[in-house]
């Protein structure tokens, strides 16, 4: 599944950082606005997949040196840990805590469900990238 055209390759160099930036934006905005870990994960995996399509498998391995399955593993572990942490404090599952940081002049609202979202992002990236590269390998044969 490799389309090694020069135009695509050049374009992907610009597209890749942009998709990651947009994914980060969506993930951070997710708590109070439209967005969130799932969407951000999908956007990021679109970036990964176009990269894989244009540069091939080997270059893709350099970009993402771990097997996608470990992204799923770490992501699920993170999300599960954040979700079950409140149990230790006698709170129900998935209870989120929040705090406001004062950095210089600006205020940053931090929520523990942010870490949950991050875990979700990793799971989605892992699943999507793993699935597409697995199915892509099959087509390459």
């Amino acid at each position: 599944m490799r389309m090694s055209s020069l135009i695509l390759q050049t374009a992907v160099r610009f597209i890749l950082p942009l998709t990651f930036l947009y994914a980060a934006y969506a993930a951070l905005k997710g708590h109070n606005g439209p967005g969130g870990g799932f969407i951000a994960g999908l956007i990021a995996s679109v970036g990964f997949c176009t990269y894989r399509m244009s540069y091939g498998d080997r270059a893709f391995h350099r970009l993402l040196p771990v097997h996608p399955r470990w992204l799923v593993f770490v992501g699920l572990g993170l999300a599960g840990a954040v979700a079950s942490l409140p149990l230790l404090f006698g709170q129900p599952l998935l209870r989120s805590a929040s705090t406001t940081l004062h950095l210089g002049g600006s205020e940053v609202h931090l929520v523990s469900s942010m870490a949950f979202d991050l875990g979700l992002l990793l799971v989605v990236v892992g699943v999507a990238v793993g699935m597409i590269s697995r199915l892509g390998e099959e087509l390459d044969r």
Partner: protein
Amino acid sequence: MTNDLLGLLVVIPLATSLATVALVRRPVPQRILGLVSLCSMLVLALSWLVRIRDGEVMVSQMGAWPAPFGITLVFDSLSGLLLCAGLLVTIACYVHGFSMVEPSTERRYFHPLMQLLIVGVNQSFLTGDLFNLFVAFEIMLMASYGLLAIGRTRRQMTQAYKYLLLNLVASTVFVITAGLVYGMTGTLNIADLARFVADRSNAGVPLPTGFTGLSVMLLVVFGLKGAFFPLWFWLPDTYHTCPISIAALFSGLLTKVGVYAVLRTFPLVFAAGDARDVVLPILAVSAGATMLLGVLGAVSQHNVRRILAVHVISQVGYMVFGISMMTTVGLAGALYYMIQHMVVKSSLFLCCGVMERHAGSDDLDEIGGLLKRHRWLGVAFFVAALSLVGVPPLSGFFGKLVIIRAGWTANWWLSAIGLVTGWLTLLSMLKIWTQGFWSPESGPRMNRGGDASGRVRCLRAAHTGIGILVVAAVLIGLAAEPIYDIAFHAAEQLTDPTTYIRAVDPLAAGSVLTASGGGG
């Protein structure tokens, strides 16, 4: 009462699943971890069940969002009994799997999938939210798809499609129905739905138009998962192809989750008002047909595993029969029957696995004389089979007694079918018994198993699994009264939803409480 630790029943298997993924190349640590997780959950569930034996309800509001907004986990007598029975069955099948599942299969994520299945099953028993029930179903089904195709034989894969596609269509119908329920009633919380329905009927306001349609759609969804009469065709083939320990687990758990969903949602919500007149006859007819056709199918089979698989269907019929009465006694009987069935049916499947290993086949023509060589296997099978048939001191008897006696006044013809089904069950069990155990030792494949020392040693785990379940089956029969008491509490809470609503959503319960005068 609030008990926020309820979430542990979902978190423990999820964490174990992750841990076993990390250890995927090393079977022994995975087995130990899996067993520790299952046993700890069983201990937790049992201790909570003892605490709520007087009919209280434990609730945990996830994320601390109050009831109709967030997801509620509810541990009442109904969930508690089924959780305990389900975990017990899982432990036995899991232990049995140590000696039955091929090492190559075990390395293909057998243990993580098993724990994931338990996440789904526990969550569907615990959840108090219709949409979350869908999610739980999906988790359970994803794991079961994986487990079904785990050996990757050609036959398994072709059969997996049937199961997979049917369940996908059913899930889609479930999503659509959940959307329609929300559009019609404005809530998806089961307690809130029960309040909605009770308020309407107390005030004499008819339910929204089309509510009956929703009931029937849900009945189709749950009926397919639970293998009710017209929707049971997928079951025998599916259970025929996968490793026997997994088939035993599926027969004990998966169809029962479908029946549980009917038991949870229909008496409280979807069989109320006008829907009642439509749903109850459907359930009654389906129950009769499921019982009779299921057992006739079983009698006509000639293959131990197929006989047992088709029997699952006929036994589901008894539960539907109990539910179709919608009376306290009928529901209590259905629940008790469900619990004993989970234990007994799985133990029969586990016996079948050992029989296959000893005789090299599960075709009744090719096996025989097992009693002479493997006496304890014969005893275990005999006890479990008699319990399935319903012979007095054993558990099946009490379940059938309650259901058939309760049904005699409501639907005598169903009770009659139930009795006939009992006789035919005896016939099919005798078929396995006489040809498999009693008949003289013969057949070309007789000397296949049991001689190599490695094989005998590795069957010890399988025997342990069978032992756990057979002892449990006898105990359920001996302790019929305390278990039935809890089941009766559960049924009372289903026929009179005030306790349930009050526990889940104390604020909204006010309207119902004043209208029905505190309930009975």
